[in-house]
């Protein structure tokens, strides 16, 4: 018989955020499944664009990914700010979870954009205002993740990351004006208005936004749950080591 997998005792208490995340995982998962089915059906039956053809259907994926990415980066700065004010590690886990899921959606954004660009503009990338800004946003938060992995000590990592996350968010409007000033020609399509979508394209787009946001919520809840479990596991290991008289290693 192999040894049973290590189980978590219930001694280390769950905090409020972790409990909320754990309870949200299953409902958001089912909701995501339902949304994805509806979205898939709507996208398949949506009319093909007269000019752009099939590649226009990226619209149902690309802008929703942008919304999810922005949400992630906003939550990262929010979690960092609350952490600095309260010094509660739960809010640091909130920030890292939001950053990781945000980077994932930003990567999807940067991957789907060029597919459309190649089909419509004839090239994968242009140094357009919004493209440049999205790339910078991605780089700022990849640097955020690198900073976390290269810093030792939980408390210090949390502080450094919080400061960087907040500074990163503060620089986004500056970057916007800077690139605008540099004459980044607006090649990227305008923001969607009330009537800029063709007949039959509104519902699939809405379904795309809802599905992406639900997917964000689900992944975020899962990541938050994992972060909470890891943290408790580390604390219990440290306590067990201390009880056994061994030196407790900072994990």
């Amino acid at each position: 018989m192999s040894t049973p997998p290590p189980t978590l005792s219930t001694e280390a208490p769950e905090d409020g955020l972790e409990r909320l995340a754990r309870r949200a995982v299953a409902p958001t998962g089912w909701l995501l499944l339902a949304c994805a089915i509806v979205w898939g059906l709507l996208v398949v039956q949506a009319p093909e664009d007269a000019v752009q053809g099939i590649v226009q259907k990226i619209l149902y994926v690309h802008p929703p990914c942008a919304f999810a990415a922005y949400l992630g980066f906003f939550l990262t700065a929010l979690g960092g700010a609350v952490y600095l004010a309260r010094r509660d590690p739960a809010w640091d886990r909130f920030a890292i979870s939001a950053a990781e899921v945000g980077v994932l959606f930003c990567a999807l954004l940067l991957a789907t954009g060029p597919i459309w660009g190649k089909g419509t503009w004839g090239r994968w990338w242009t140094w357009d205002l919004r493209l440049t800004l999205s790339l910078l946003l991605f780089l700022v938060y990849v640097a955020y993740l690198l900073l976390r992995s290269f810093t030792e000590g939980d408390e210090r990592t949390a502080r450094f990351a919080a400061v960087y996350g907040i500074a990163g968010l503060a620089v986004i409007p500056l970057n916007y004006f800077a690139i605008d000033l540099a004459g980044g020609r607006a090649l990227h399509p305008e923001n969607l208005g009330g009537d800029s979508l063709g007949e039959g394209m509104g519902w699939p787009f809405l379904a795309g936004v809802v599905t992406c946001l639900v997917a964000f919520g689900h992944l975020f809840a899962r990541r938050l749950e994992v972060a909470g479990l890891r943290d408790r596991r580390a604390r219990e290991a440290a306590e067990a080591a201390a009880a056994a008289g061994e030196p407790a290693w900072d994990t």
Partner: protein
Amino acid sequence: MWAVLWKDLLIEWRSRDRVLAMGVFALLVVVIFHFAAPAGPAAGGEATREHLPGLLWVAYVFAAILGLNRAFALELENEALSGLALAPGERGWIYLGKAAASLVLLVAVQALAALAFALAFDLDLVPVLLPFSGIALLGALGLASIGTLFSAVAVRTSYREVMLPLLLLPLLVPVLLGAVRATHGLLAEGTVPADALRLLAVTDAVFLIVSFLGFEYVLDE
């Protein structure tokens, strides 16, 4: 703040290693650019002249990162950083002292690099010396302000020399764009575009405020 500024400048004056390293590095960048440029402006390459402000600012940013990497390295010896953190009073003032010291060094290196650029690429900077210095100072303020904050962060990570440019470069885009636009306008048309100056000033102000407030959380308790 003045004590920290004075201490940093005094140490630098006694050893002169940081400013020397930054200066030599900036000169090397000029030489490399000269060979990397498609056709030297001495040979009448208009395209290179168009890119000179950008090249100049790339040299400044690289030299600044080199210098900022050392800004807090000295404080790590003998736990001097903990001593600074324990000093009574607002930590923001320590930050301002460190940033001011970096700014002074950076301005010195900028002057040297500008001279080298002028000689190497046949630029006449004398008639535009005053506005050029103003732009360089505003740009240097932006580099030193946010750079000092993240220098204090990067120095306590592993791979610290790699970490600082990774953290800093995406944040420096507004400074770089504003400074390059302003320099370009000055050298090409003789006037400084007001919107570029405004961008530089606003960016400097935002960076100073964010760094002044953020430094509180960057030093260890």
